[in-house]
């Protein structure tokens, strides 16, 4: 099941430059939330703060609080890998593990977290690949082919399957379709639509049509600030902030 998200007073820095300022946001469980905005507005940093990937970059720091379901993400003593296990992430460029087979890629999250039951791993791998609509294309070469041998679109669906296999409650997608052709993009969008039955999804996108197609809620970021956050319909038809309107009508960005 998906979980809700609550972000309070989130600030983030790279060294001395502040990239997020006082972001407050609440997202419902099992909803798809899109994060839009021009390049460099902090939207990637925002999602990377949700699963503590932000802190893996040297000199990166943050303040504020993030709650995902019942996890206080930045509670003192909260262990980062535990957070990341419950919050899956799909990156902009497909990044399958090149030396692992398709099967091993999907099983990696379970195995490398110490899970050993073969039968159950078999089932999870099949289920995850079915959900990500890749099963039929790869079921005969699961252990023979490397994850890197697939096409770009297939690789990205493999990465989604890999993220789903650890059974997260929230799935973060950082421009998951920006490196893909329109057909692959269509497949990923369809997938996102189905995923929200079981997961909460936050998707960063450059593509406003994509946000309009897949998201229930949309947040507009500009220069590190969350300018407006509302139902997607409202954002795209009657935004309350002038800057949002300028951006979605293509006047800048």
């Amino acid at each position, binding site marked *: 099941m998906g979980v809700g998200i609550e972000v309070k007073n989130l600030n983030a820095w790279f060294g001395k430059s502040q990239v997020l300022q006082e972001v407050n946001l609440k997202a419902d469980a099992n909803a798809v939330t899109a994060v839009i905005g021009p390049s460099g507005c902090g939207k990637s940093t925002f999602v990377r703060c949700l699963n503590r990937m932000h802190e893996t970059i040297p000199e990166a720091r943050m303040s504020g609080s993030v709650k995902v379901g019942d996890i206080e993400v930045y509670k003192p003593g909260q262990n980062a890998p535990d*957070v990341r*296990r*419950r919050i899956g992430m799909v990156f902009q460029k497909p990044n399958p*593990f090149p030396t*692992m087979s398709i099967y091993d890629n999907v099983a990696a999250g379970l195995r*490398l977290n110490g899970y050993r039951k073969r039968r159950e791993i078999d089932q999870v791998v099949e289920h995850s690949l079915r959900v990500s609509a890749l099963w039929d294309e790869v079921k005969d070469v699961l252990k023979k*082919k*490397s994850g890197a041998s697939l096409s770009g679109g297939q690789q990205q669906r493999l990465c989604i399957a890999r993220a789903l296999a650890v059974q997260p409650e929230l799935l973060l997608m950082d421009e998951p379709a920006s490196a893909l052709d329109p057909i692959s993009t269509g497949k990923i969008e369809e997938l996102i639509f189905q995923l929200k039955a079981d997961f909460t999804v936050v998707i960063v996108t450059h593509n406003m049509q994509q946000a309009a197609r897949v998201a229930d809620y949309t947040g507009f970021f500009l220069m590190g600030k969350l300018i407006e956050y509302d139902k997607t319909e409202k954002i795209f038809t009657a935004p309350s902030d002038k800057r949002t309107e300028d951006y979605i009508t293509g006047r800048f960005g």
Partner: protein
Amino acid sequence: MPSLSRPLSLARRAKNLTFIGLAGLAAIMVLLPLAAIFAYLVIKGIGSLSVDFLTHTPRPIGTPGGGMANAIAGSTMILGLGSLIGVPLGIGAGIYMSEFGGGRYTHLVRFTADVLNGVPSIVVGIAVYALVVLPQHHFSAISGGVALGIMMIPTIARTTEEMLQMVPNMIREAALGLGIPQWRATLQVTLRTASKGVITGCMLAFARVAGETAPLLFTAFGNQFWNADPNQPTAALPLQIFAYAISPFDEWHRQAWAGALILIILIVIAVTAVRIVTSRGVVQHNT
């Protein structure tokens, strides 16, 4: 305006051919010494190679037959001990420099590794003599292994570092994003992705120290008899070759050639075997 659709001018084609030719020549110059050495070893050594040579210990001079079986076994033991020390320490240092370092300390480790690489092998032998042999009061295969292990570290550490640096950061992020703890992500994802290059580094270091004589003179010392105790003086092929080569006896000279041939063959076998074993379970990129 110059037209790009025109065929290349004669001068440019000549330049092109010249450079291809020079590159080919350089490649041949690299292969030539190895081929020459190997051919010479085969010519000189093949006559003395026999089953006896591989299965018997040395005989006193004047007695025909005898071989280097104890030296082959001893070299295997010393190189095994050396690898046991050099490979984990070298890879560990490489991981530290690439994944966990940053700052002055990493610089120091890298600098030390580079200097260690340039230390003459006999100096390493003397150092290990002082550090291991003297306190123990006797020569041993272990001290020989320590000397060879120390010599392996810099090559392995530096290649490991370089190979890990070539792994794209998004692979590390993918692993961390799955909630895999960093030590495990480093060992089982990053290092595994770089494994081909890291293994090449280990093999280079292994092949280099396999032929070392100087560091073994004061450590493993050599032995004319069988010895399976790593805590005792032990024969090694390079030592045996050295001893036979400087002897005044023709029979021993012939055996030294055969020993050198065996040493090269053993290195080739070891390198190939490691390649085969480690390539299992790793799928190819483009199939």
